[in-house]
């Protein structure tokens, strides 16, 4: 839990999260994943019928599970590598800055 919280905090702070998200969304649109997921959503919604689809939030995990499998492997690997590189890049930069300036890190 604390790990995820940390990651979220940091990536939002540095603006990396939105950057990575943009890259990811673009890749997914390019490879057609988005349209496939839209079809899946559509099927699920139509299947449920019009009146009883009140527990929408319960449907989302269903769709999510299927959507995860739909991501092409190549895209997934590429994205993971990209994320890793960005994270370690940040790390390296900060470390370099930290070594250079002794007390220039006070961001308060």
């Amino acid at each position: 839990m604390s790990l995820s919280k940390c990651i979220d905090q940091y990536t939002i702070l540095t603006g990396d999260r939105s950057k990575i998200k943009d890259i990811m969304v673009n890749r997914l649109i390019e490879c057609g994943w988005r349209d496939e997921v839209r079809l899946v959503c559509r099927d699920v919604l139509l299947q449920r019928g019009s009146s009883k689809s009140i527990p929408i939030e319960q449907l989302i995990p269903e769709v999510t599970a299927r959507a995860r499998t739909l991501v092409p492997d190549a895209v997934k690997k590429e994205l993971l590598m990209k994320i890793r590189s960005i994270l370690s890049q940040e790390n390296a930069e900060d470390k370099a800055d930290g070594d250079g300036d002794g007390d220039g890190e006070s961001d308060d």
Partner: protein
Amino acid sequence: MPNSNQVSSLGATSATGVQATTVQNLTAAGIASNFREIIKDQKGLDEAANYLYQTLLDDAVAGIFIETHHLRKTGNLSALDGVGEDNASAYRIVETPNLDIFGISTTKKAIDCTCPNCDRLVAAARFAPHLEKCMGMGRISHRIASRRLATKEGSSAASSYLQSGGATGGTDDEDDVDWSSDKRKKKTTQNSRNNGSKKNNGKTF
């Protein structure tokens, strides 16, 4: 470096066995140092990357789902599909020059009505005025008819009344004036043509 160091062990039971990371207050440097703690080893980095990937993917899926759901609720989902080619023949857009877009002819059909009074075929647009004249119940025809009756009955007496005041001449001329110019002038001007003599102004008692 931040002054306040709060060591709060937030259930440090993460899968990689990261020891109780010193979660400091929400200062920028604190967050950064926490992050670096995690990223140091390869395993931490992997886990971080995986977690981030998952979260962002879930966000994307939720977004798509909500978008589709909204489309469905507003009814635009079927609009996106469009009309199928087979059953579109009934709804196809017509583009011939004389027909409008639904295929209906633009020239006006002559709809004629039969007058119940005189049993004639009259055009629909002209039906009401014709009926007015035909039945004699309209304003103008009523006045003319009663005037004719008046002049007919007491011919000398009435016509002298009408002629004494009016400079417009005989009753026939007045009738002509009425028929042709009733559309242009108002009724008050016609009434006051008798130069003030209001007696027997075309009305029988």
